């Protein structure tokens, strides 16, 4: 854990004790990052705002279940946000979601490579993952990013890339194995 992790871990402990000011401080620090994650998966600002609200309610209620030993607070917060966004996506009827599969897939084309922070400005840990991602074959890496960043299912990735779903599944599986190998345990 670095200093930022340490500070955020303490903020979570204060949230667990019912300290609303700690939640606000945490919100100021991480809400923009989490909002960006939610927007990528949900596309719609209203859905992302609602999800962000739920994420922080969940943080407020479950702060006591965060254990510093289980890793970085940001990994914990990111997971809460992503799982929430995936749940929202799953619960929406197709007509509530902007467009059909093909449209969604096309929308994400633009989002795939834009608005990324320069690799050089990343922390050492983030660069380590980036380096491992770069060692994957382009298809494996792209399929994994579309799943993780854009929240796409195997089927949606298949439509987006124009490859059979079985191929996509195998890319994702092999990509994850390679990442695990590259990053170690």
């Amino acid at each position, binding site marked *: 854990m670095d200093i930022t992790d340490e500070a955020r871990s303490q903020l979570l402990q204060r949230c667990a004790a019912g300290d609303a000011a700690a939640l606000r401080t945490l919100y100021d620090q991480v809400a923009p*990052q989490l*909002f960006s994650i939610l927007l990528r998966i949900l596309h719609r600002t209203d859905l992302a705002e609602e999800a962000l609200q739920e994420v922080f309610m969940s943080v407020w209620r479950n702060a006591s279940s965060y254990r510093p030993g289980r890793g*970085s607070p940001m990994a914990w917060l990111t997971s809460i946000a992503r799982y929430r966004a995936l749940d929202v996506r799953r619960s929406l009827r197709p007509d509530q979601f902007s467009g059909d599969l093909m449209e969604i897939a096309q929308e994400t084309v633009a989002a795939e490579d834009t608005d990324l922070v320069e690799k050089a400005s990343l922390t050492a840990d*983030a660069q380590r993952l980036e380096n491992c991602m770069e060692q994957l074959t382009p298809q494996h890496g792209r399929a994994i990013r579309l799943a993780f960043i854009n929240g796409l299912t195997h089927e949606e990735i298949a439509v987006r890339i124009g490859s059979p779903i079985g191929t996509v599944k195998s890319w994702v599986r092999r990509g994850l194995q390679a990442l695990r190998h590259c990053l170690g345990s």
Partner: protein
Amino acid sequence: MNYQHAELIDRLAASYVLGTLRGRARRRFEKLLSGSIPMRRAVQGWEQRLFWMSVRLAPVKPPERVWMQIANRIGATKAVVAAPVQTSHLWQAIAATVAGIALTLGVLLMTREPEVQVRVQTQVEVQPVQSAHTAIVADATAPIWVLNAYPGVGSSAAELRVQAVREVPLAADRAFELWMLSDSGAPPVSLGLLPRNGSAVLPLTAEKLRVLIATSKIAVSIEPAGGSPTGAPTGPVPYVAPLLHIA
């Protein structure tokens, strides 16, 4: 399927974290997750490995209304939610510069160190008596009850005011009973039955008020209509919430 198999667990955990495990398989995995340490450990490992991918996304500042709704729901600050724009600017300015501000339901801002109280005048009407003990009982989606304890002033007795925000389904022959949970292992103390809808005032005896001031958690149990026959919770406990002591 043998979920104990380490490699299979790891593969499922990876798909779960990545998000490609969907539908019934995802829900089944989630159910098993709470009861399996190896599965939780595998999931945490993947969360830790993959979350770095999202730090490359450029941050997007959410509109201030999102925080206002959160603040409203956790009961942190009526002033921030209800007051005009200037107040929220004021709040932002203070939050940015002063560490550890406790904001009560009204307009009393207190810095933790040094021990100086700062009263900030706003257009929000000041409540003559402020509740210093407050709780929101909620499920995973939204608040159900808002509780505020008022210590008695002069000849008026102490009371707990409860507002049901929405009605949750419950069998007709059952009731929700509110309890104070002790940190030291003492048995829960009943505060009375919660209203299904609307509001209610639960009287607080001097003894109950004394316990309440030292209580950090409350719980709601499902009891026969009329309340627990034994004086202790007898049914399931669907809700637990922190009791906040402000100021």
